[in-house]
């Protein structure tokens, strides 16, 4: 009798705790057995795809859901963000976005952008790479100071790039604007490596890339890294000064560098659909926090050439709010002018 009542008591306890846990975390129960689409805005095989395929099994373990990587290339990743932004708000569409073109596309009013980054729930940041300005050995310049002086002497500096707001070009544009340089941006190159060839050949003065690429391109000295466009030095290129260390940036001009650095801080970020229940957003944020701080995963990723630089969903959200929150209309039109027309 005693044992039976003990059993009943025990089962009641277990039952109660189960209901309790279900009440505590309905999001965890929701995801069990569901299918999460982990979307990337590029085709298979590229960097974003590789990150997503690395994260998919981990996300599956952390949530109990089946995670499927979906490639939805188009419009430089913009199309897929549109789709996620207007998907069912069930938290089953998660996307790894490229923060730089997304944020700049929104600010410059790119034709296909139908989302507002500040409205999207951010789940975390996988990586963010600082941008570095390189000059061609052929140009004869070796430092940012040289560039400033040459520009003062009436020389025009040219930088190669792809589109207008997908990284290299806008980095060069904000540097030109902040330091009041005479610049000409030569865009239309098919990829950043082709843009680098133009610099190596000496067709342009230089160009800007992420620190990893900068390290690779500068191996043999045909391109020289002269400054990190931000406040902190790169871990990969510890000897390269920041733009603030390299030259005197006028106080009112620092806005441009800060602005660009914040956009970079969004990095390769994870988003889901606006309107997703808060508990699911919180649950996914927690899942990514755990996954991306796991030293084993960080090591595997780094070995595959996929560096991890985690920031929490909340932090990224704050950065996005800072970028878009207090931008007055006239500032936006100045930004548009600098990024889209002034230096072309």
């Amino acid at each position, binding site marked *: 009798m005693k044992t039976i009542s003990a059993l009943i008591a025990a089962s009641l306890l277990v039952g109660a705790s189960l209901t309790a846990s279900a009440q505590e975390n309905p999001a965890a129960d929701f995801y069990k057995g569901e299918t999460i689409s982990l979307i990337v805005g590029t085709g298979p095989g590229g960097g974003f795809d590789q990150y997503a395929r690395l994260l998919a099994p981990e996300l599956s373990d952390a949530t109990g859901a089946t995670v499927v990587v979906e490639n939805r290339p188009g419009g430089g990743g913009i199309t897929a963000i549109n789709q996620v932004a207007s998907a069912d708000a069930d938290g089953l569409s998660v996307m790894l976005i490229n923060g730089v073109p997304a944020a700049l596309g929104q600010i410059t009013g790119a034709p296909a952008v139908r989302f507002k980054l500040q409205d999207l729930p951010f789940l975390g940041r996988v990586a963010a790479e600082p941008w570095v300005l390189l000059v061609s050995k052929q140009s004869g310049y070796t430092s940012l100071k040289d560039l400033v002086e040459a520009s003062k002497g009436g020389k025009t500096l040219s930088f190669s790039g792809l589109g207008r707001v997908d990284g290299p070009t806008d980095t060069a544009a904000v540097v030109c604007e902040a330091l009041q340089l005479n610049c000409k941006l030569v865009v*239309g190159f*098919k990829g950043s490596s082709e843009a680098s*060839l133009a610099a190596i050949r000496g*067709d342009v003065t230089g160009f800007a890339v992420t620190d990893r690429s900068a390290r690779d391109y500068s191996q*043999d000295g045909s391109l020289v890294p002269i400054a990190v466009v931000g406040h902190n030095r790169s871990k990969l290129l510890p000897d390269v000064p920041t733009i603030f260390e390299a030259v005197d940036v006028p106080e009112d001009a620092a806005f441009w560098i800060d602005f660009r650095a914040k956009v970079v801080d969004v990095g390769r970020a994870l988003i889901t659909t606006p309107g997703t229940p808060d508990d699911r957003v919180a649950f996914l944020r927690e899942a990514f926090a755990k996954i991306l701080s796991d030293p084993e995963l960080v090591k595997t990723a780094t070995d595959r050439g996929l560096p991890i630089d985690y920031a929490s969903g909340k932090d990224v959200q704050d950065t996005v709010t800072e970028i878009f929150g207090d931008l007055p209309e006239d500032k936006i039109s100045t930004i548009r002018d600098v990024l889209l027309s002034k230096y072309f």
Partner: protein
Amino acid sequence: MLDALISAGSQTLQPAVLWAVASALPVGLLFGLLPGLSGLTAMAVLIPFVYGMDGFAGLAFLLTAHAVVSTGGSVTAILLGIPGSPANAATVVDGVPLRNAGQSGTAVGAALTASAIGGVFGALVLLVLLPVLRPVILAFGPAETFLLSLMGLTFLAAVGAGSPARGLFAGAFGIFISFVGYEPVSGVPRYWLDYDYLLDGFRLIPLALGLFAIPELVALASGRMLEQSKGELPGTQLLNGMRAVFDRVGLVLRSSAIGSIIGIIPGVGGETAPFVAYAAARQSSPDPERFGTGIIEGVIAPEASNNAKEGGALVPTLVFGVPGSSGMALLLGAFLVLGLQPGPNFLRDHLDIGLGLVLILAVVNVLAAVLMFALMPILARVVSVPPRLLVPFLLMLALLGAYSTQGDMHDVVFTFVFGAVGLACVRYGFNRAALLLGFVLGPAVERYLEISLNIYGPGFVFRPICLVLIALMIAALFAPKIGSRLRRKRA
């Protein structure tokens, strides 16, 4: 160099590498045989398998699968009239009339042999250029790329049969539809009708499949039988085809050289190589009017060049980390996965790997052709499958191919849209190969013209290499006229 060559040889003979090659070879050929599945898809599908492979074996694995795709694709192009990969589109032009004349065995034999020789040639070019690569690539800037692309456009009228006027019209239409989407330099979207899919423009694979596969399938479904080889035994035909290639060594080498050069220059799409080789063969032929009616040269030229271009495309990939083709862009990604860093120092630090890749490229091209020869008795039977079974199967494969490139249903829909265009082209005698060539070259011409004007101003045409290219272009335009006049005088 010799030490590195020996070390490369011994690396290539490692069991792990041999296994990698042996497993990738059939995969690459299969991707080539199946319409719509291209080398790019092969690479994307196989990349996950290289995790954990030894560096060199992993690269050999991917390179093998990628390099032999166009060898497999030539067989589909000839037997079924559907290019197995976009690089085989030019082969259809003369391959199909040859098949209809009962000469499919000869055409396949010639195509495979030309592929093998072209591939080995491409590898040799890579080997010879390895020490002097940097200056060669640096010599070809935006201005030179523009003129090369323009030179490709001058061949529009010469690709395939039919009236030159219709060839030009089809080419112009191809250029026009290439304008859809973001303008390459200003980033302004054109003709996109507020329809997101069109922002990136039309895609090559649905276009190539629509133009070539759909009309062929429609013809099959409406009762036309595939011609079977008649007369000699298929085996004899294959040998005849092989002999035809060896009788035209000059043509094979010239076409391979064209492929290599186009491969080396990153801006010109590798897809153009076979068209340019085809047109060049026609321009330099004593009887250009026979091209498009089923002439063996029309199969040899594109097939030699499309295998040769892979060797060329490896050049900028290894030396600058600048991919020479979209497949190479993925290969570049794999280098990083395997912990290798292509770029300026790669050949200094890893000359043996560079040379090893050259060896692999040469060997697999020959192996692929041999394997396809061995499989021909089985593959040739596909033409005796009744159309009611063959058409649904091929249609499914083609649509799967269209879908798998980007995972986008739009591509499937547009395969049908371009299918209608293809049917119209066939019906009214417009040249589909010219359309495709215009489509591929249009953006390159536009992009590099604008960049050149931006960097150098209009004076860029006076750069030395540009002047040479302009002279070549003029010579190519007038050569057929002058040539035939000379011959008439002699006669």
